């Protein structure tokens, strides 16, 4: 039987209370959202916090809403909430799809989007899908609130720019323009129930038969999810045909730094990354052309 180290549990109801507790415990405290990653780290003795500060009673930290062109995902919205959210499914189906493929139903019902991002595991699906949509996170600390673009949040394996007492309260996703098409492709080298070997999310806007805007993100290929800006530049003003996709794929690979794990070697991961990037771009682009063909509003 593995032993969960002893800890004190606090369930503050205000942010002031939360930050006071965080001040008191300093580095001995951890914020508790869904706990799916934290409890595993504690069970394997990698973390032994003296106190867990649960976030679930704080005001305004849950829920999924839309206001003035933005989707606001409360930090404590679970993966399952997000996968099923009618708002997400309508405005950002690729994002809903990404949440639907996280882990297993048990994890999806416990794990939260805020916890997922703060944990900063580069193998996760949601950060990749969110970066492609231009999401930002709202972080609240004792001195107030700030917005951090998601592609600037991560700094390394399990590391973010969040200050010690800052807590993620929400994720803001601009509602994609009606002519933007998105795709999320997760490649699994072993079982359907696994972390991705590589995952790619893309958002494209078309104009005059060419890519007018592009945002491309790749996961599992380095210490953080990668926003592939160079590759985006190579797409804009172009038709994403096979030749262009090869150029884009090569540009993505130069930005990666994969490691050996049980899903594959670095060489293998580099080899298949352009394949998955091309599939994601094609899938999004097919959405663009299908929409035009079907006469749907563009």
């Amino acid at each position, binding site marked *: *039987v*593995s*032993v969960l180290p*002893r800890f004190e549990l606090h369930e503050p109801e205000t942010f002031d209370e939360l930050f006071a507790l965080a001040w008191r415990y300093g580095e001995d405290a951890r914020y508790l959202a869904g706990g799916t990653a934290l409890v595993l780290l504690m069970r394997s003795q990698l973390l032994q916090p003296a106190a867990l500060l649960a976030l679930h009673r704080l005001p305004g930290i849950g829920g999924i809403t839309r206001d003035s062109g933005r989707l606001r995902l409360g930090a404590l919205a679970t993966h399952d909430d997000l996968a099923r959210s009618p708002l997400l499914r309508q405005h950002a189906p690729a994002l809903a799809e990404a949440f639907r493929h996280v882990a297993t139903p048990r994890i999806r019902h416990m794990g939260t989007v805020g916890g997922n991002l703060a944990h900063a595991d580069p193998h996760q699906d949601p950060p990749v899908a969110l970066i492609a949509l231009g999401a930002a996170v709202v972080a609240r600390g004792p001195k107030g609130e700030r917005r951090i673009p998601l592609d600037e949040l991560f700094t390394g394996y399990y590391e973010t720019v969040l200050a010690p007492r800052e807590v993620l309260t929400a994720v803001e996703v601009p509602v994609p323009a009606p002519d933007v098409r998105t795709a999320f492709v997760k490649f699994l080298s072993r*079982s359907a129930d696994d972390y991705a070997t590589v995952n790619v999310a893309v958002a494209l806007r078309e104009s005059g038969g060419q890519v007018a805007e592009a945002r491309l993100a790749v996961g599992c290929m380095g210490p953080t999810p990668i926003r592939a800006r160079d590759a985006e530049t190579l797409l804009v003003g172009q038709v994403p045909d096979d030749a262009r996709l090869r150029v884009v794929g090569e540009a993505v690979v130069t930005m990666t730094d994969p490691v050996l794990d*049980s899903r594959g070697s670095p060489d293998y991961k580099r080899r298949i990354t352009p394949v998955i990037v091309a599939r994601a771009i094609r899938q999004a682009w097919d959405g663009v052309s299908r929409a035009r063909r079907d006469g749907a509003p563009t």
Partner: protein
Amino acid sequence: MSTSPAGLRVVGQSVPRADGADKVTGRARYVDDLSLPGMLIGKVLRSPYPHARIVRIDTSAARALPGVHAVLTGEDTPKVPWGFFVPDQYPLSVGKVRYVGEEVAAIAARDDETAARAVGMIEVSYEELPAVFDQEEAMAEGAPSIHDVTNNVAMHFKIERGDVEAALAAADVVVDETFEGMLQWQTPMEPTGCLAVYEAGKFTLWANVSGLFRARMQLARALAVDPGQVRIIQPAVGGGFGGKSMDDNNAVICALLARAARRPVKLVNTREEDFIGGRPRPTIRIRARMGFTRDGTMIGKDIRLVADNGAYSGKAPAAAGVAALRHDTLYLNDTVRSELYVAYTNKVPTGAFRGFGNPSGEWAVEQAFDIGCAKLGLDPREVALKNAVGPGRVSPHGNRIGSCELRECIRRATDRIGWTEGRAAKRPYHGLGLALSAHVSGKRHFYDYDGSSVILQVNQDGRVVILSGEGEVGQGATTVMAQIAAEELGVPYEHVSHMQADTESTPFVLGAFASRLTYVAGNAVRQAAAKARAEILLSASEFLEAHPADLEIQDGRVQVKGVPQRAMTVGEVASRHNFRKGGQPIVVTGTWDSDSESHGTDRYGSESGAFSFCAHAVEVQVDPDTGKVTVLNYAMATDCGTIVNPVLAESQEEGGLIQGIGYALTEGLLIQDGQLVNPNFSDYKIPCIADIPPLHQEFVPSYEPTGPFGAKGLGEISMDPVAAAIGNAVADAIGARIHTLPITPEKVLAAIDRRERRGERR
């Protein structure tokens, strides 16, 4: 709807599992659910080094910790090496450690937390020794010596029947390729665990082992006591698949802690401990040479196997022996040679896993067969049909085959997958594969004995209790035995129950292994039920005033044939039989030993009383850009005689297929420099249900005359040929062969690259 063979009422029916309701309601009590007053929690300190001399162990700080009741090291143990086939391991390390995860010291403390703290306070100084992690490197000159044996070889044999070199020289086509499997872990839902009590010179253990009496023999040896001083009771067991057949030290250490602490001690592995200190399927490197004549007749076969034993000999010597020889039960070729080495390495010791040596052997040999077919330009289905054995055959190693519908299995499995049409309309990166297997129904492995005995009692209410020590690890054995008893006796299935397996109250048996319980224990149960039936009829003949031959038992009632109103219940008969002067309960024994033969050094003789057969056909698709293999469709046709319980039989085969797909595509313990790097379900991937293809199952009509109601063994065979069948299908899809398991997308892509560099196209 009745699915029973003609004339049968209970055998052939999908009655609910005897243990089903308890398990789904949470009533079933597993080791970790058990608790005794004053019980302590055990915890083990394991070696961080693959090979090291123990210089010093300081346990003083751990001993001084309040709440710690016992601290043990190798010095506190009897230092008697133990093991089923090659006694070479100690309960706790003596002198040196030989793999990462070896048990060095153990603690019993008042709770988990104290035990964990105390383990952390034990100080061990090691002097690292050179280590070796490959079985052939271990056998090479100058390799580090792991045990006091020459070239680290734990076991070796070489068997030749006929002149193999002459046959291969005469062959039109000769295959010569080398394959290797992998360390596959059993993945039971419940980890290995034990609760032990030591009182008045006697150990009592609730241990989740699959063979209580074999475990008792080993425990007595390791504890240096008489078997009568050890009692083992089997709680509900959450799956074993061979991994709970007592090759590891868990129960021994638990017993030693209970004796040292003079308190009950519970020691349950964490999942990680189960991974690093378990006994996975050994990996075996197999060079297979196989010769055919132009018409597809196999005329000679030569295999050389080098098995990786790991640091100690669990059941790898026996499993590797099966990998070396069993395959020769499948084909008509009599000219065979097998040479086997089992070599020590500084890795986790290995043991029994569903299929035993067969999945390892089939992976190599059934692929070699397929390569032969390709070289000959012949359809593997036709070549398999041409070479397949039939009833009455004696294999080159002396296996006497009774019932055998192997050829029908080949026809049905391939038909169900659309084999002939699929081959005719071959598409790129789309492949079909076929593989066969033969499995035993029990094996004469332990002295000259391959039998089973039961006690069967008919209570005064007519309910029947079977006392059998064979036990239940989740495979459905007690359900099948109850069905056989109910059928033979003429009572409803619901009237038959089992006594919990216990070395002190159920008779000595060998326990679950080698797919033996339906066949061997089933025969013993049937015999006991027949005896009870005869006794009931004799007694009833007095009460009903009719000749026993004119009586029958139906649905729990004894009646005069043709006069159903002249009847009494079995309970009434048992009651009147008992409650009279000179009366007695109806208690009978049933005992049966199979007609198998034990092997001497020549490895000749019929190892089992009956053989089951199967053919698996599979359709795969390969993504040429990523190398990912998708299994599209799977068909298995099995000859295991009469099916006692169709739903249980189907689920056994489904489980075997899933573990087989894991063996083929996703699993494998990864050991780097001696460290297991994937001891969890996030990194060690078993297939999930979304990975499982549509499955077509066929049980071909078959009747085994020596089996109970015609039944043979079925628990393992569905796992045996899966990897080989998928390997053959992948080769068909990509035009190149994968030689090592698992078949990862990375290996497939590399194979496609190599083929393209050679300028070949699909």
